Structures are given as C-alpha cells and as structure tokens.
C-alpha cells in the first residue's frame, strides 16, 4: 500500500529518553513513510509508551533528533499537535456527551469552522453507520462502536499521522476487523498510521513492524521479511523469540 519512495513523515535519529539513571529509550533511529501502516510493538516496559509520547510532542527527549510531519519535536510541538491525531487506550471520548457533541468538540478544538464541522459530522456518522445514534450518549454505546468513533474523532481534522495506543483492546474479532477496515481506508487517503498493539495478528496487517526490547529497537522490517529472517511462520513466534529474554518487565 505504501512505497519506500513516499516522503518520510516520521524521522528519528538516535532518539533517547533518560529518567535519571534509567534509560527508557535508547538511540531509537527509524523512519516512517507517508501512508504507511507502521506497527510499533514491544513487551511491557520496553519503552513504547515513552517513545510515543516523545513523538506526539508530549515529552521532551533527552537527546537525539526527531521530526514529525517535518516539524522538530524540540521546538515545534504546537505545529506537531496540529498535524497529528491520537487515540488513547482509554478511548478519550466524553461519556457524558453524545456522539455528535464529541465530534463537534474535537473538530472545533482542531480549528475547523462550523460549516466544516457540520459536513464532517454528517460524513462520519454515515461512514460509521451511527446516524441513528447521533444523539446517544457515548456511555450508552457498545464498546466496539466507541472504538470506531474514537478512531474517527482522532482523524476528524484529517491529520498527516495518527497515533493509536492499543486501540482494539477488549472487542470481538469481527469488530476488530471492522476497525482495521477503517484504518485501511484512512491509510488509502494518505494518513500515516502509527499503531501499538499486543495482538500479533494485527501485526500482520501492518506494512512494517518494529519490536522494542529493553529500550532499543530489536527488529524493524515488514512482517514477511521478519518471519523469513527468523525462520518462523507467524509474528507471535517472532515476537516471543525477541522478547522472551527481555530484562524489563513492566512500564
């Protein structure tokens, strides 16, 4: 779906984060191209969350360089925030607001005008088949719909990149498939997907995958290549191979 000739939207060079003596992320160096679906894997405690927070502009690195959508993570965090979307583990929708109110709020925060918001809302509701639920409180939605809505809200402003932090926890396989359909559609439109997950079958859906162990990137390639490299036939075994000797056990 993507090609290596597409321009890079995430570029890191020896990105490091230290907390006192503890090195959470150690000289991470990689690139992600536009429209790519990039899986960012790692065991608990490997440093995934810290890395993602640096890329989102939430945490200042200790050393190294990184550019998101061409903006520097040290000096241009505001511009980065405008260019990215983010979906957190807790979904981050407001339970006590309705579906359309949530869409309206986030769209407004990202600077969309009222007419734009109106049309975007209609579009989203149609795509997600939530037209009837427009005035339903999010707390009353089933989990799968919440997730799909959360994803859609995270790209309501059509960002260059969207960061997804373990987005599919707790839903049935059918809903997960539907969720990934949404992801594919977004990638087709040119949105770069940066996703972390514990589901190894989802790793197979990505264009490329990186696996972090103890703060370093232990492997980075397409799932096919990784499987070939390790002589294994599924990503779960690859992951197990790399992560089982990990020294750090928890974030």
């Amino acid at each position, binding site marked *: 779906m993507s090609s290596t000739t597409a321009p890079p939207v995430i570029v890191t060079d020896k990105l490091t984060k230290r907390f006192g003596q503890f090195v959470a992320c150690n000289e991470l160096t990689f690139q992600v191209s536009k429209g790519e679906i990039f899986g960012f894997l790692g065991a608990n405690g490997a440093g995934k969350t810290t890395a993602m927070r640096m890329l989102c502009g*939430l945490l200042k690195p200790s050393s190294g360089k990184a550019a998101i959508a061409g903006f520097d993570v040290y000096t241009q965090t505001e511009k980065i*925030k405008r260019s990215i979307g983010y979906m957190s583990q*807790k979904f*981050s929708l407001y339970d006590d607001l309705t579906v359309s*109110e949530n869409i309206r709020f986030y769209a407004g*925060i990202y600077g969309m005008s009222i007419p734009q918001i109106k049309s975007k809302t209609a579009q989203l509701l149609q795509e997600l088949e939530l037209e009837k639920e427009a005035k339903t409180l999010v707390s009353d939605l089933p989990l799968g719909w919440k997730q799909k809505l959360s994803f859609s809200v995270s790209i309501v402003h059509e960002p260059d990149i969207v960061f997804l932090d373990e987005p599919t926890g707790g839903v049935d396989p059918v809903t997960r498939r539907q969720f990934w359909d949404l992801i594919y559609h977004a990638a087709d439109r040119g949105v770069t997907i940066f996703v972390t997950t514990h589901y190894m079958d989802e790793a197979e859906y990505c264009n490329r995958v990186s696996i972090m162990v103890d703060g370093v990137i232990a492997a980075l390639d397409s799932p096919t290549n990784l499987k070939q490299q390790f002589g294994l036939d599924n990503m779960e075994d690859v992951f197990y191979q790399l992560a089982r000797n990990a020294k750090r056990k928890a974030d």
Partner: protein
Amino acid sequence: MIKTLYFLLEKEFRQILRNKGILRMLIIAPVIQLILLPLAADYTVKNISIAVVDNDHSTASQRLIAKITSSGYFKLTGYTGSYQAGLSLVENDKADLTLQIPAHFERDLVRENTQKLYVAINAIEGTKANLGGAYLASIITSFNEDIRVDWHTAGSATGSNAPQISIASSNWYNPLMNFNLYIVPAILVSLITAIASMQTAFNIVKEKETGTIEQINVTPLRKMVFITGKMVPFLVLGIILFTLGLLVGWLFYGIVPVGSFLVLYASLLDYLFAMLGLGLLIATYSGTQQQAMSLSFFFINIFNMMSGAFTAVDSMPDWAQAIVSTFPPYHFIRITRMVMLKGSGFADIGPDLAALGAIGLVLNVWAILNYRKTV
C-alpha cells in the same frame, strides 16, 4: 484561540447541565440551606436557665428570686435546698448557673451590713457564662439598690456622695439587632467558597483520572485556554449562586444591601478569582478525585471555622490573625457585611479588595506554574 475556548466552554456547560444530580447539589441544596440555616444561627443569649438554692427562705430572698425571674433573661429551672442538688442540675445541663442564698441571709445583712451570694457558672461556653454572670450581677446590684432605698431611707446616697455614670447606647447599621443580617452573608459566602474551589478541583481531576486530559494534551488546545475553560463555568455558577443568595436574603429575610451592587459584584469577581485559583492549585496536587476531595475539605473546614463567618477574628491571638489574613474568605466576608449593612464603598473596602487580589494572584500563578509542570 477564542474559537477553541468557545468549543471548550460549550462542552463544559453541556456536561454540567446534563448532570442533574450535581446541578441539584450545586443550586438547590445551597438555596435550601440558605433559607433554613439562618434560623439556627443566633448568638443572642436568652433563656439562661438558673437553679436557685435558697437556704434563707426570707422575704428578701423571695424578692430577689422574683426579680431574677421577671428580668426576662433567666428561666428558673431549679429551686432546691441543697448546693449538691443545684450542682447536679448544672452537671446535667439542666441549669446554666446556680445562685446560692446562704441561710440567714436577710437577718445577717441587717446585722453585719454586708452579705455574700454564691454563684457557680458552667463556663464551658464562654459567651453564655460571661453574659449570664453579667446579667445576674446587674440584677443583684439593682436589687441591692432597692433594698437600700426600702430599708434605709435616711441618708441613702442619691446625691453627691456617690456619683453614678450611666450609658446611653445606640446601635448603628442594625438597630433592631437582627442577627440574620450578620449570618446570611456568612452562610452564602461559605456555600460559594465550597463550590468555587471544590468543584473546580474535582472537575479537573476527573479529567485526569479518566484520561481525557491526555487526549487534550495532544491537541493544539493551549494549556492556558484549557485552564480558563475549566474555571469559567464555575465563575458563572458562583455569580448565579450569589445572586440567588441575595434574592433569598431579600425574599425570606428582608435583607436589602445598603451599598451598591457594583461594589458587591466587583468584590465577588475578585473573590471567585482567588477561590478558583485555589481549586486549580488543589487539582494540580491531586491524582485522584478522593485526594482532591480530601485537600478541599481540609481548606474549606478551616475557612468555615476561622474566617470570621461564625467566630470572631478580632479575639484571636496575633499569630492566628496573621494566618487568617491570608484566607480569601476572611476578606470577602468582611467586604460583604460592610457593603450590605453599612453601605461601604470601594474606598472603604480597598484594603480587603487589594488583599483578595494579591492572594488570588499568588494562588493562580502558583497553580498555573504547577499545572504546566505536572499535567
């Protein structure tokens, strides 16, 4: 930036208005309390219960007792023959004080020209004890005069031998000594204080706990705008509650502010600025709603007891007064009472207004700096 503030405020108000239970607590409960509680608050010491131990049973002692009971200050709740019985009445809170008239009081007064009366007062509650003792003393003095006039007509000193000074007292600003004028502003301020600081803290910490604040941090929404968006709804709520309070005061207690509404509302804004800052500060130090609640409760309880709402600040030792002068509610209660009852103007409340502004500035700056660092 204004536009993002608009969307933020829209969301905040939607959330607050949708939450019926909270709305009830924020508006209805305070109003009900404001209507009912002033009825409970009255310092006027009346109906002091007295037990008399009369070991004399003479005309004089009867006369004294009659004078006491007809004074309007005292209620005779015991008439016994033994000091022990009288004392046990005080122990069981059936009497606030006892008066013991010794045996042969009347006879010995004539013979020896002087006699003692023994008074024992339950002094746990200082005001009542003081006033009770004072009232009784003045009744005894008056009784003494009566006796002198009756028994000793010749040479009684009503002339140059004993100069007597009397007092002409007048009460300004509240000539009817209406206690509600004093208490209603206090209750109103107490309620607003709780809402402004506690609710703000809670609201922000809730977003911390549920994780939506993480989402907010990733958006281009600036922290200052977010903070403002969080505080404005409670600013509005505070103003609404204050207005409702003034209405209740007028409708139920006939309280009409003597001073100008402009002064009153300007002071309210100054005050809310400080209290919202406190709420924000508490939020930056709390990770869970429970912690926010604990911290808020700590401050609110201290404010309620020490800011002069229900207890007198002037009577506190100097170090305590210094501490109290850093409490925003202290200044605002002073301002409210002065403006509502005496018609004080901007010039008069200047020092308090300035103090509020300074405290508010410190709280808000501290809170914002802390917020930037930790949230």
